[in-house]
């Protein structure tokens, strides 16, 4: 109904509170803007005076009274309503009561025609006055899934770096020819197994037979632990299957959760960054509770965090499984049930990236329709414990799969946490990005906003946490136009166990992120620094609220770094070029990894051992 077809009303607004009523004044302005005739009385008039004035006004449609409850207030309002009726005001005008603690029941008891509580949308009140239905934005979610890379061109701006990267990635592609690994073989088999189970043209018995054959081959590439599970049903330590009762209840729970969609908007006047949280309590039920609550409190996306031992074990388990410690197990069934709980506009990342199951995880993620994945061979092999050669070949396959399943992927430079200087980790970052582009994938750069060991030693954050983080982003932006998503989480190493400090540092780092207009951020809970137990749901809400507040505070304004930022930026860019030169000169990416050119033992980076010697030649 457009503004012109609504009959204009005459509304009297009465602040009965002794102090000025802001809400009533705002409502007054909004009603005037919509063309209604309003009269706003001054506050704290005696009742007789109000009634007297009221009875002198003709054709009044509504009387809006605003009053907070207190001792004796109910009786005062009761008398006011009586007087209004005795003065014949109620013959024509409707009496509306608004204020803190006002409910429809209270309004009815006091004799008003309508009551609105403190948290009522102004739009709802206006709709009532205009006699039209108020439609809450229920199913109309204000956020829609967006593709993070879509607003970037991936054009290089630094030709030196471009040239070096080109050399390096050509070599990687060449090196990888005719190589495979157990991980890659498993990925292929997994893909075929999934295809079989989803093939409607096959009869059930055929499916069983085919799957059995594929599974047998699959197991030939798995570790003892995994084989034991498939053949004898023995689960690894601290892992249990969810009972069928639990699964039944879980499905009902998911259906219930999806009914009432009422999400908060975390952004204010900017459309970026997207806000991601990670889940991985170990239990899919608890994860889903966390995910749904995070969605409600404004998270745009969630990503799956799996147990660390998963990276070191050849092969994935099956079934809906619960894990007693941090990290939720990656299995087709676990991921499927979690996917089923997500709102359709929630972005879902499944991380492949640092272990022996990298390509297989990419297959499962892709088949389940994950939006994004995570792949980084440099971090995974220098800080994540996987053998460089193995991870390079697996990662490459994973990148191809990511491209195939249309999943952009992010590359987390977590080696920085081990001590590797930012410029070196960025060199690695850009190599993988360039590789991805050649393979028609969409890489997302993930520098860290962290208080890293290198920064502690070099003193770059002695004064503030802003300059160096800004320098990182600007340096990357000066090289290539690619999506940037700081994480995981922002503010890493600045959190303490104190809830306020922890939430605040997350919010402040979010402020830098929004000021720089990066594409997305991953935020921690306020339990980030607490290591003796799982993350609590309350602590997740803490940081979502804190970030929302930071976004509100900053709006479209910016944070201004000192001149140091420019200095650091130049240093980083120079460092990237130098590191890349060294790698290019070495002529072998994998060897460069082993030899520490992208992160050395002095830096705190050690080539991983998991999967050493498992690359299959020819």
């Amino acid at each position, binding site marked *: 109904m457009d503004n012109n077809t609504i009959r204009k009303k005459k509304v009297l607004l009465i602040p009965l509170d002794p102090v000025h009523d802001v809400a009533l004044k705002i409502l007054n302005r909004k009603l005037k803007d919509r063309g209604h005739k309003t009269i706003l009385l001054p506050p704290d008039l005696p009742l007789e005076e109000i*009634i007297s004035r009221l009875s002198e006004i003709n054709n009044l449609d509504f009387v809006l009274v605003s009053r907070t409850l207190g001792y004796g207030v109910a009786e005062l309002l009761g008398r006011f309503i009586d007087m209004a009726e005795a*003065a014949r005001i109620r013959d024509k005008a409707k009496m509306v009561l608004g204020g803190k603690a006002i409910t429809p029941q209270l309004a009815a008891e006091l004799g008003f025609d309508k009551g609105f509580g403190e948290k009522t949308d102004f739009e709802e009140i206006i709709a009532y006055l205009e006699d039209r239905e108020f439609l809450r934005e229920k199913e109309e979610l204000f956020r829609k899934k967006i593709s993070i890379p879509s607003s970037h061109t991936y054009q290089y701006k630094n030709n030196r770096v471009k040239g070096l990267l080109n050399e390096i990635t050509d070599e990687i592609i060449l090196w990888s020819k005719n190589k495979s690994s157990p991980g890659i073989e498993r990925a292929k088999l997994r893909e075929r197994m999934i295809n079989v189970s989803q093939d409607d043209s096959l009869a059930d018995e055929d499916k069983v037979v085919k799957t059995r054959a594929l599974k047998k081959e699959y197991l030939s590439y798995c570790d003892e632990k995994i084989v034991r599970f498939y053949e004898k049903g023995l689960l690894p330590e601290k892992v249990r299957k969810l009972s069928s009762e639990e699964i039944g209840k879980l499905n009902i729970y998911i259906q219930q959760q999806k009914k009432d969609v009422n999400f908060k908007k975390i952004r204010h006047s900017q459309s970026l960054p997207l806000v991601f949280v990670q889940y991985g309590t170990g239990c899919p039920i608890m994860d889903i509770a966390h995910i749904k609550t995070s969605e409600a409190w404004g998270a745009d996306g969630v990503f799956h965090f799996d147990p660390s031992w998963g990276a070191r074990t050849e092969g994935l388990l099956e079934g809906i499984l619960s894990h007693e410690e941090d990290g939720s197990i990656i299995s087709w069934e676990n991921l499927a049930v979690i996917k089923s709980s997500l709102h359709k506009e929630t972005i879902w990342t499944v991380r492949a990236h640092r272990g022996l199951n990298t390509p297989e995880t990419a297959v499962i993620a892709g088949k389940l329709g994950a939006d994004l994945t995570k792949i980084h061979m440099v971090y995974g092999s220098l800080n994540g414990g996987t053998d460089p050669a193995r991870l390079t070949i697996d990662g490459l396959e994973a990148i191809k799969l990511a491209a195939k399943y249309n999943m952009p992927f992010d590359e987390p430079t977590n080696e920085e946490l081990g001590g590797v200087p930012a410029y070196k980790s960025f060199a690695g970052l850009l190599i993988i990005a360039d590789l991805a582009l050649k393979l028609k994938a969409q890489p997302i750069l993930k520098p860290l906003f962290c208080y890293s060991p290198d920064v502690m030693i070099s003193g770059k954050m002695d004064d503030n946490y802003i300059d160096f983080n800004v320098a990182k982003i600007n340096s990357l932006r000066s090289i290539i136009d690619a999506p940037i998503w700081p994480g995981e989480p922002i503010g890493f190493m600045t959190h303490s166990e104190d809830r306020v400090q922890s939430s605040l540092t997350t919010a402040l780092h979010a402020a830098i992120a929004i000021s720089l207009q990066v594409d997305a951020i991953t935020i921690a809970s306020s339990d980030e620094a607490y290591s003796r137990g799982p993350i609590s749901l309350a602590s997740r809400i803490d940081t979502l609220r804190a970030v929302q507040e930071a976004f509100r505070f900053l709006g479209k304004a910016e944070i201004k770094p000192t001149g140091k930022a420019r200095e650091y930026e130049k240093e980083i860019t120079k460092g990237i070029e130098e590191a890349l030169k060294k790698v290019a000169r070495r002529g072998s990416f994998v060897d460069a990894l082993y030899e520490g050119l992208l992160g050395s033992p002095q830096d705190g980076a050690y080539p991983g051992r998991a999967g050493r010697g498992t690359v299959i030649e020819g």
Partner: protein
Amino acid sequence: MEINNKVIGILGTAKNTGKTTTFNFLLEWSNLESIKVGLTSIGYDGEDIDNITGLPKPRIFVQKDNTIATAEQCLFSLEDKIKTIEKTDVHTALGRVVIGKARKEGLVVLAGPNKGIELQVIIQKLKQQKTEIILVDGALNRMIPLIYCDALILTTGASRHTDIDLLVDEIESMSRVFTLPLRKHKQVSNKELKMYQNNIVIIQKKGNPILLKGHSLINQKTFDSLINIIGNQECEEIYIPGIISDTVLKKIINKYYLLFQRKTIIINNPAFLLVGSRYIGYLKDIIDDILSRGIKLKTLYKLPILAVTINPFYPKYSRFGKDSYEAAYIDEEQLYQKMKKEVPFPVINIKGEGSTKLEMIIKKFLNISIRKNA
């Protein structure tokens, strides 16, 4: 026993003065006597926790076939227990008022029409359902819609004031107002006078009535124009269809009584006079002063007060109680004795043997079929 379909309203002076207890007593009695009863309220009642204090409250227990008029939102939890007869066009803050019949016994929440003209409509609809007595529960200290009842029961108690003398003063004032005599037909008939709803009417010895702008005496402007006219004309009666504030009455007593001597001030009904006073307790003295100055006070409409029920309970704010309020009591006997002495209506402590007394009063009332008005 001839019943004659009376409407009895329960008027409370404050929350927690025993309205719902009295209401429930009457309801129970009606059901025991197999009198077909219709129920509604002018507010919201029947909840088990008080909206404001959080203390438990009595709830309304209906029997099969009791007819009720309540807001649709109050029927949500009742579903199959109440059969909907009609969804009226009377709106409340909890939705439209629905006329229904109880299919079986149970607890209900009554949220009825919030203004007099709509209460009249609902009363008619209840009567259409062949009720023999209609009970209207009050809400808070609200009274205006209840003047459309045939009789009232006042409830008061420590929840209004913990000072017994103040309580008694108040009920005394209310009694003085409710016992004001009916205006008798004069040169201008009552029927004609009742038609003037929007103007103060000044009836002269000779000539046509003069109409003032405004229906209530609550501001200086209207009072001044009234004084002017009375000063210049020979008038006999002044009819105020709306509210008269106590401030104006005090002005009349203190400064202008000579102008009003031997004249009659006519109010529309007792409630309109009561509502104009911030402190009802002083009204009795004001009325006495007016009358002693030779000014007459009459009313156009009247309804009887059958009884006053008293309740010694009040919610006391406590730091350690549930939701910060706990139950407290004043001296019941003292309250009863003092009230009985000063108030011309039967005083009843509903929780004691007073209930038998109330039964007798109601029986007597229901057998009387003359409706008291001009």
